[in-house]
């Protein structure tokens, strides 16, 4: 090798640019023609299906954006993600594990002293190391019971208040909450805020009940007994000792609005409100949002930020674009395109949603209390295609998601209850 390096004559030559450019040109021409041909075939198939009264095929999402996004949209991202997952499940030879994981930790900034398992040999592959647990007490919870906790280790990308139902992705670029969470009200066993099963807001005002308009705090009515969420969480009978995190200091509570204000608010018909709109009229409230990005070296399990009840989940089998901060800046509506699991429920102050969004390298989202959920799976894609066809056959637009409601251990809450800081699930490789 030494003599080879010393004696070999190095000759520098310019790269044949013309050849490279012409090759790229021919490739691009081939690609455009191929896409055109596919579009024609799809159009023909759809026309035939329409004439025969059969449902049309589900159309693939083609996002707009710079050339990097256009190139990415041509790649089979979900298939790549699955191959990546399989690759990372290959067993690493025993003696390569420690140096391999240490190198990974060095590159991506993993703090190995926090890992629950001190012996890295125990992890058979990168997938299991990636989904590692931490030592007890490594992540202490904020002592303030009124705090909304960080659900994961990561970087704050955006946060703020939602105005006119739009979430700001980057300055001037927004996406709608309907696109992120779904445009229809979730199917829930619990009485809906504006539902006919509960006492109407007007009736509550007339009866003069305190905080009665917050029907979202009334979770169930079993044998004529209504339970409120604060009572359930702080009561001695609460299962698992859920913490009392509801504010008890009444001086910090907002002053009640006047009846005129309440009535004016009620004048808005329920039909005209989006399903996720703040329902409270007693306590003025708003919708807040926060986006947290998990880097490859971060701990990839996620936890509950508050004590809340998950009533339903929506699985959007979308694409799996990278969610790196660069792509978040360049691809509009990225979170509405990617595969995601929207968990919908309620907390002390009303509506609460929690959406883990998958990415190319981490396409599998796991929810601990949802054994039926399968993300980044070929079956899911087929099921989504079937659902789209069935919706078309019924003459309805396809909602874009598969929905399930949670029964949970607590029948009273009408969902699955989570306490603050509780592990909910995580992201797995591929």
């Amino acid at each position, binding site marked *: 090798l030494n003599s080879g390096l010393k004696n070999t004559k190095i000759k520098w030559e310019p790269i044949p640019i013309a050849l490279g450019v012409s090759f790229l040109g021919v490739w691009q021409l081939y690609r455009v023609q191929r896409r055109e041909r596919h579009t024609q075939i799809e159009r023909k198939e759809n026309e035939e299906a329409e004439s025969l009264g059969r449902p049309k095929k589900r159309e693939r999402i083609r996002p707009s954006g710079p050339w990097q996004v256009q190139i990415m949209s041509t790649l089979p991202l979900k298939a790549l993600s699955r191959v990546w997952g399989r690759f990372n499940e290959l067993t690493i030879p025993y003696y390569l594990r420690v140096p391999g994981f240490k190198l990974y930790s060095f590159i991506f900034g993993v703090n190995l002293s926090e890992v629950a398992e001190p012996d890295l040999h125990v992890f058979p592959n990168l997938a299991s190391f990636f989904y590692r647990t931490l030592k007890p007490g490594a992540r202490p919870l904020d002592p303030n019971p009124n705090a909304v906790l960080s659900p994961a280790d990561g970087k704050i990308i955006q946060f703020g208040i939602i105005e006119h139902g739009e979430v700001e992705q980057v300055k001037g670029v927004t996406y709608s909450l309907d696109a992120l969470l779904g445009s229809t009200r979730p199917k829930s066993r619990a009485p809906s805020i504006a539902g006919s099963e509960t006492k109407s807001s007007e009736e509550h005002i007339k009866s003069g009940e305190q905080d009665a308009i917050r029907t979202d705090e009334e979770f169930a009515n079993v044998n004529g007994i209504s339970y409120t969420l604060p009572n359930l969480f702080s009561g001695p009978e609460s299962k698992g000792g859920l913490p009392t995190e509801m504010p008890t200091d009444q001086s910090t509570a907002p002053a009640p609005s006047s009846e005129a204000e309440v009535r004016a608010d009620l004048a808005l018909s329920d039909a005209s409100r989006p399903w996720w709109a703040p329902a409270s009229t007693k306590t003025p409230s708003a919708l807040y949002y926060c986006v947290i990005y998990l880097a490859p070296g971060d701990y990839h399990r*996620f936890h509950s930020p508050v004590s809340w009840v998950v009533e339903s989940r929506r699985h959007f089998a979308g694409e799996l674009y990278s969610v790196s901060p660069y792509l978040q800046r360049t691809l509009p509506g990225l979170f509405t395109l990617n595969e995601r699991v929207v968990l919908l429920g309620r907390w002390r102050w009303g509506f609460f949603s929690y959406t883990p969004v998958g*990415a190319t390298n981490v396409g599998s989202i796991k929810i601990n209390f949802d054994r039926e959920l399968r993300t980044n799976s070929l079956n899911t894609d087929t099921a989504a295609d079937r659902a789209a066809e069935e919706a078309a056959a019924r003459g309805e637009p396809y909602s874009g998601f598969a929905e399930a409601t949670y029964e949970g251990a607590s029948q009273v809450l009408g969902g699955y209850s989570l306490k603050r800081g509780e592990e909910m699930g995580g992201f797995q490789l591929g």
Partner: protein
Amino acid sequence: STIVLVFEAPKGVRPTLDEGYQEKRKGEFKWNIKDGMKVKVGEALGFV
């Protein structure tokens, strides 16, 4: 991977004149984070 939280929280009411100026409006949800900030599980994103 990314997590998007969307939640309802009190907007707060402006204190009356006799209560004087308060930095934090009564009952308002207040963020405790900044753009690009690194957070860990259990740290407070905000307070009601």
